[in-house]
């Protein structure tokens, strides 16, 4: 556990010692602050909730999360520091979890910095803050699930751009699996069971469940197993490809 924390804090301090963290946080907050008003009709709805804000998260994460996850392992392999890391007395599990936690904490920090949205809506009206809290937790879980997918693709390549693109495409698939366009197409061709299965794999579906104010066991299981599976996959891929 101590090793995991040491690895995570090193990784996290790495974000802040380069412009990466500041560029990311700047654009993250600009998008998160502007788009709910500009695109999603936050004012025009005249409802005291943050639904337009949280509905944007899966879409914004599509390109913000790969930007964080792409460097996790690709840079380590490209610069050769992976050899240093893997000959230190730490296990593969500690490395994969430590680095993932650093990335997740980082997106958590970014998410916490969107608190002016919470202030705004509480100033304008009387929102259900329980629902808002649940949505924040849901968004954090979503970020974690997507980061784990990104960790897997970052482990597969030395090239950060490739890691970004692969993670983006995978994310696109996972978000669109719950989009009506895709679901309608599947419903007309396949049994209902398949539609339900596809829908339940989608980020959108899981996110919608949670932003209703309910963090149910299914969503927790979904993100939990997605994270565990992708991190185990990252470890296996790294073991296979570390020397190449």
């Amino acid at each position, binding site marked *: 556990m101590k090793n995991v924390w040491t690895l995570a804090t*090193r990784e996290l301090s790495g974000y802040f010692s380069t412009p990466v963290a500041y560029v990311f946080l700047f654009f993250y907050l600009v998008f998160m602050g502007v788009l709910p008003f500009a695109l999603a009709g936050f004012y025009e709805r005249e409802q005291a909730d943050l639904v337009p804000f949280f509905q944007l998260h899966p879409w914004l994460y599509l390109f913000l999360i790969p930007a964080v996850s792409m460097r996790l392992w690709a840079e380590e392999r490209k610069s050769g*520091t992976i050899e240093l890391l*893997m000959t230190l*007395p730490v296990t593969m599990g500690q490395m994969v979890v430590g680095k993932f936690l650093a990335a997740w904490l980082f997106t958590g920090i970014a998410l916490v910095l969107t608190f002016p949205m919470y202030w705004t809506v509480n100033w304008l009206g009387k929102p259900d803050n329980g629902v808002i809290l649940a949505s924040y937790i849901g968004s954090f879980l979503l970020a974690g699930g997507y980061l784990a997918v990104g960790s897997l693709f970052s482990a597969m390549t030395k090239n950060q751009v490739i890691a970004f693109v692969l993670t983006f495409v995978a994310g696109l698939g996972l978000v669109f699996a719950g989009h009506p366009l895709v679901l309608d197409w599947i419903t007309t061709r396949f049994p209902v069971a398949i539609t339900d299965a596809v829908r339940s794999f989608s980020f959108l579906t899981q996110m919608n469940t949670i932003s209703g104010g309910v963090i149910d066991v299914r969503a927790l299981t979904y993100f939990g197993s997605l994270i565990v599976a992708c991190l185990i996959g990252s470890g296996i891929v790294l073991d296979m490809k570390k*020397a190449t």
Partner: protein
Amino acid sequence: MIEIKNLTKDFGTLRAVDGITFSVRRGEVLGFLGPNGAGKSTTMKMLTGFLAPTSGTASIAGHDIENQPMAAKKKLGYLPEGAPAYSDMTPAGFLDFVARIRGLSGDAKRARIAEVVRLVHLETVLHQSIDTLSKGYKRRVGLAQAILHDPEVLVLDEPTDGLDPNQKHEVRALIRAMAPNKAIVLSTHILEEVEAVCTRAIIIARGKLLFDGTPQELLSRGPLDEVFRKITTQATAAAS
């Protein structure tokens, strides 16, 4: 302290390391010689647990690197080829990270980092990011990281590469000073280095061990570079 038995590594159809066996005792400094691509770095990567061997075993201080990797790695200090380090960190931050992973904390950690910094002369660049450092300083950061926990076994892949003559002299003096309490393996291209610091020399080419003896034995056969060329080209000629 180091036991290598029949170590073999295949990359696809290429046999990079071919049944190498040797051991290193405490107090010995083993010079690992060979042409480029001979399998020196691959052997070191297997010894330190980064690469899994195709067959054969390697152990450090009695711990098999494959079966007891954590115990073995705790006894080991390793400077990988090219001295990789996190380029966006400072030497101070980097050494602090390695010290924490090595289980050091508090005053013991601070004292040990200060001592190592003094040994490899990093004082002036301690708070400068590593990617702005010269090749010589980067190599010394890598060396500092390897000796931080005063390991019983030290594996150094080209420790003096990129250093100027004065720095080379200092690093060699440092290695000689540490030698009595450790088992040290170092690879090098510089034949004089073997004479200067090593108590034993091994020559490999095409993955095969061709010579294992003292530098004096090697010298008794004639000038070092000629002996080296003779041994390594014979193997190449025989293989082709």
